[in-house]
């Protein structure tokens, strides 16, 4: 293994890390914004909301992310009407197409995770809070959500790590993320082992630090007296 070459390629790979990190961070934020209302819709009393949320999760959890990216990037671009619309400046860019696909995908999975967290809060607590006069909104904000988030964190952390790894698919739509840079360097240098080992090391560092962040957050959210 040519370690020198791996070190030489680090600056290029780290420029890929910036792209990967940006994409994942933005997709997590947008995904979260999608996931929370979707989770609430899934347990809503209104059948139409339940149906919509279920259909969304059904599609985005039931199809490969690569297919979703290709549909958004190559598929939409086939329509001339869309190319003439105001959406085209956004859908023209591979970055936005990847971000949309990642956000919708992680949103669908996270919604399920949050739904599980919300439903794990004993119903008696909600009834007690209502009985002392809390509005439904503050019941959710002060009673349900803090416990639901704590319950959902391990699974949500898992989803974040899966998203980091799935983001490597961005390289298929010309983005120069970590994988995109590594593939290009591997083709130029004929040293695929070195390049992909270096890329793997960067992904490991990224996922490791993210899972540490989740662990720290878990500790913070666990009440002191219940810590073992």
């Amino acid at each position, binding site marked *: 293994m040519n370690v020198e070459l791996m070190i030489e390629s680090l600056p290029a790979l780290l420029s890929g890390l910036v792209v990967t990190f940006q994409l994942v961070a933005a997709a997590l934020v947008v995904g979260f914004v999608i996931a929370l209302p979707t989770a609430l819709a899934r347990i809503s009393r209104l059948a139409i909301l339940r149906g919509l949320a279920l259909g969304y999760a059904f599609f985005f959890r039931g199809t490969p992310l690569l297919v979703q990216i290709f549909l958004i990037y*190559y598929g939409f*671009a*086939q329509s001339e009407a869309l190319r003439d619309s105001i959406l085209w400046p956004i859908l*023209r860019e591979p970055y936005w197409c990847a971000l949309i696909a990642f956000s919708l995908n992680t949103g669908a999975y996270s919604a399920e995770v949050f739904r599980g967290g919300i439903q794990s809060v004993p119903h008696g607590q909600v009834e007690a809070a209502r009985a002392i006069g809390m509005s439904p909104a503050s019941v959710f904000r002060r009673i349900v959500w803090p416990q639901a988030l704590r319950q959902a964190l391990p699974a949500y952390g898992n989803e974040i790590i899966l998203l980091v790894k799935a983001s490597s698919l961005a390289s298929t739509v010309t983005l120069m993320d970590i994988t*995109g840079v590594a593939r*290009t360097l591997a*083709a*130029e240098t004929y040293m695929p082992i070195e390049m992909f080992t270096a890329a793997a090391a960067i992904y490991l560092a990224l996922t490791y630090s993210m899972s540490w962040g989740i662990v720290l957050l878990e500790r913070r959210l666990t009440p002191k007296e219940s810590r073992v």
Partner: protein
Amino acid sequence: MKLKILAAAALASVLGQAAQADPIRIATEGAYPPFNYVDESGELKGFDVDIAKALCEEMDAECEIISQAWDGMIPGLRAGKYDAIVASMSITEKRKNAVNFTRPYYQAGAILVGPEGSDIALDPEKLNGKTIGVQRATTYANLMREKYPEAEIKLYDTVENHNLDLKSERLDGVVAQRVFMHNWLEEEGNDGFEFKGDPVLDEDYIGEGAGIAVDKSNPELLERLDTALAAILENGTYDELNSKYFPFSIRKD
């Protein structure tokens, strides 16, 4: 006396073997139209096949053309399963270590393709700020990166994908192999695009072209093929075959 008969028998069998090995066996792939492919009746056809036949006629030799999977092509030659490869094989330094090549018999070159009427060309000034698509890990990617850094270069996994993005107007142009792009332009729905300028034939970027590979243990055949190739290039046979397949010349002088 007995010894003499034995010797004669041995000689006869050696001669017999030589006679059996007489047809020159030429391998091609049969999966790279229009250069080599198998037609509906199962027959090998294409530019490579026609060149091989013309060379055999020129050498006055009997030839047998067989199809062979691409990845086992050079190992098969070295193992003696056939005598030569005429399969659009690009001459590279790496392959030269394993086999001998004749002079290149064609070089398709790289071509820029863009929308009809657009002012784009392989020229630093005209590429400034333009987005050009190329396939990752190809000579075309190297060409663009090293010679035209003014353009924004996008790397695609396949030629089909960069052509899709050319059609959806994400790209101002693509650079790819000339024959492939010529065929693409002929396809339905791609008539809004055209070749932009002359093909790039610079050996430093796109290599020497395609050559005929012969095993290193067989320099005689290499010489015969080179002589025959020079002859068909000279006597018009080559140009005739060229124009049968392509409206532009791909000969390499």
